[in-house]
């Protein structure tokens, strides 16, 4: 094996594939990067049995071949190099890396022991702009459950609905739904992607302005974009019947300015011990919303002018849950609809159904 490549390309490739390489791999062989040189391309792979990433770069190829190299060492070396071109070749049992005046000799391993990345058939495909997908993930990922006892909820549901691409996440206390209208996708699909996969995917997508192709099978999914193929297992099982918990009738609806409300929540969280201990209590009287937190260290009260329909009411929340939702709303105003002080409330846009955040309140001790 022998090729010449820019440091920048090497760096990009290593950054990509190392997202699928654990520092503490289950099998030692999975701590390596797989490098294969063929035609005029170098193919890099990382795989932790859950997520597999393949990254392809052009290079000046002198001799084809394939090796495994220790991921951490190779990444450190690539990062340390200057901007010169890098020549990499095998010499008996050494991999030689030459850049400027630096010459590294490191050990390489035979590729036979490296597990093959799963093949994903390209029969079923959804296409979406990277920017949209990124926003959908960012605006829902926080409510993925962390409770391993209900594994299916540790993933996000991807679901099609009349030219829409929907993403749903929920833990026991809240739910996030995001919708993107995408024309030309007639396929019906429904699958659950592990939250961890989405977090890594988010870091990998650097170009907002390209198409990402999503190929799915019953047990795995592949995202194809730029130079990358990103393969992940899907979570198996029936997802929570999330539609059943969306309330339809409300006793109170208010409309608030998103930025103002966000600032109020943030100020309230200053005394609530990270929103975990003292609940944020919202009191709605006529057209005034009063937000109040009685923390151990102190308390804060603030009022906000709102539009209101329905009854006056008083309800408590974990401020963190409200903040996560409100931060994900990229509109001037949001509608909040309440069903009662011990029932879920929902946050929706004024005039569309692009998002829905459902949050369960905290029952205030009498």
């Amino acid at each position, binding site marked *: 094996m022998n090729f010449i490549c820019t440091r920048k390309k090497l760096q990009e490739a290593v950054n990509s594939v190392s997202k699928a390489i654990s520092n503490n791999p289950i099998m030692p062989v999975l701590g390596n990067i797989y490098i294969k040189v063929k035609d005029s391309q170098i193919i890099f792979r990382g795989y932790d049995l859950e997520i597999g990433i393949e990254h392809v770069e052009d290079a000046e190829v002198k001799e084809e071949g394939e090796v495994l190299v220790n991921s951490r060492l190779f990444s450190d070396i690539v990062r340390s190099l200057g901007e010169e071109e890098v020549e990499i070749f095998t010499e008996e049992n050494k991999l030689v890396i030459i850049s400027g005046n630096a010459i590294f000799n490191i050990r390489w391993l035979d590729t036979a022991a490296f597990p093959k990345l799963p093949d994903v058939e390209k029969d079923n495909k959804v296409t979406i702009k990277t920017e949209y997908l990124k926003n959908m993930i960012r605006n829902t990922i926080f409510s993925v459950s962390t409770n391993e006892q209900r594994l299916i909820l540790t993933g996000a549901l991807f679901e099609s609905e009349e030219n829409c691409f929907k993403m749903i996440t929920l833990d026991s*206390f809240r739910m996030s739904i995001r919708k993107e209208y995408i024309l030309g996708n007639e396929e019906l699909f429904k699958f659950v992607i592990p939250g961890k996969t989405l977090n890594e995917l988010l870091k990998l997508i650097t170009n907002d302005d390209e198409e990402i192709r999503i190929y799915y099978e019953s047990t795995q999914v592949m995202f194809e974009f730029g130079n990358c193929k990103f393969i992940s297992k899907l979570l198996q099982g029936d997802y929570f019947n999330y539609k059943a918990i969306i309330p339809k009738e409300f006793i109170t609806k208010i409309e608030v300015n998103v930025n103002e409300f966000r600032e109020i929540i943030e100020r309230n969280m200053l005394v609530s011990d990270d929103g975990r201990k003292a609940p944020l209590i919202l009191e709605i009287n006529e057209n005034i919303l009063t937000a109040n937190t009685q923390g151990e260290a102190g308390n804060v009260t603030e009022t906000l002018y709102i539009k209101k329909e329905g009854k006056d009411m008083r309800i408590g929340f974990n401020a963190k849950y409200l903040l996560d939702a409100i931060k994900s709303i990229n509109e001037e105003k949001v509608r909040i609809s309440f069903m009662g002080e011990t029932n879920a409330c929902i946050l929706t846009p004024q005039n569309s159904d692009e998002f829905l955040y459902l949050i369960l309140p*905290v*029952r205030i001790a009498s």
Partner: protein
Amino acid sequence: MRDILLVDMNAFFIMCESRRDRTLLEKPAAVAGDPKYRSGIILAANYEARKFGVKVTMTVNEAVKLCPNLVLVKPDHNYYEKCSKQVFELLYEYTPILEINSIDEAWMDVTNSKKLFGSPIDIAINIQNRLKDEMGLWCSIGVSENKFLAKMASEIKKPLGITQLYKSDIEENLWPMPVRNLYGIGKATSEKLNSYGIKTIGDLAGCELNYLVKKFGKYGLYLYYRSKGVDDDPVAAVDSKNLSCGRMETLAHDITDIRDAKKVMAILTESIARTIRAKQLGGSVVSIQIKYNTFKMINRQMRIEQTNLTKDIYNAACVLLENNWDEDKPVRLLGVTISSLNNNDMQLSLDSEVKDKEQKLENTIDKINDKYGQDIIKRGNIL
């Protein structure tokens, strides 16, 4: 200076029994676990029985050998709790600052009660007489300036003692005692201290602070100050967040089958869940205790969503059992505890609807059991 009393009920369980059966007063009698099994140990012995050498934690067999006419009474914890409540209600008449230390023991801060009820000694005499006359229960009272000395004082004369112990008296009264007698020192610590040549509380008081902290860490601080009679701890109702509720059971025979252990857990979790439901508390840390027939004991815990449902606590206890069960180690005692109790605001969850139903069901079961007697309704898993 503060005025602190410690009221310690004498032979509490058996004295409670004597309230229901006056004849027990004249005979040697003891409350004990089921005498048929070896798990039967003496839980409380009256003073007639103590004359024969019968002691708490002795097995029933040993006790009967010493005192063949010993009357054995089966324990009735519900009744003792009821009596205990009545005792504390009487104590509350003298001060609102009361700290319940156990079912039969409480500290009182009477610093501000003197104008109404007289000197601390007068208050102690008054309390002791009223408990005896009105309720037929005996107590020993320690009178001092802090909780620690009050506790030590109460131990000096039993039964029906009233003992004062102030810092100025400790050289004479406290220091000659063996370290084992110091409140807060167990068997292991006293053995360790003895091995360093520290035999009496006086020896301990003579130690450098640095030395004790080096040997015992933070606990060294406790030893240093207590041996000098210093204790600034206020008498206070304990913060409910730090409270816990637990139960342990010594088994009738050693078990190795986890299915048996789960049955025991079902009974224990039902009991503690019921207790915290009655107090309208919920807890979020479940721990289990396993004592092997080698007397080695382990304690394992896990965090769960705040709950007071038997099912949730039982499931957590089973997870802990499964993770720690070793079929090669016979088990003689099992326990379960729920802690981080509080009655604060409760985050509702998507499972709340199911939970609400379960909550109602369990409350109903509790009510029926309260009305018609313990365990009229039992869970399938303990049959």
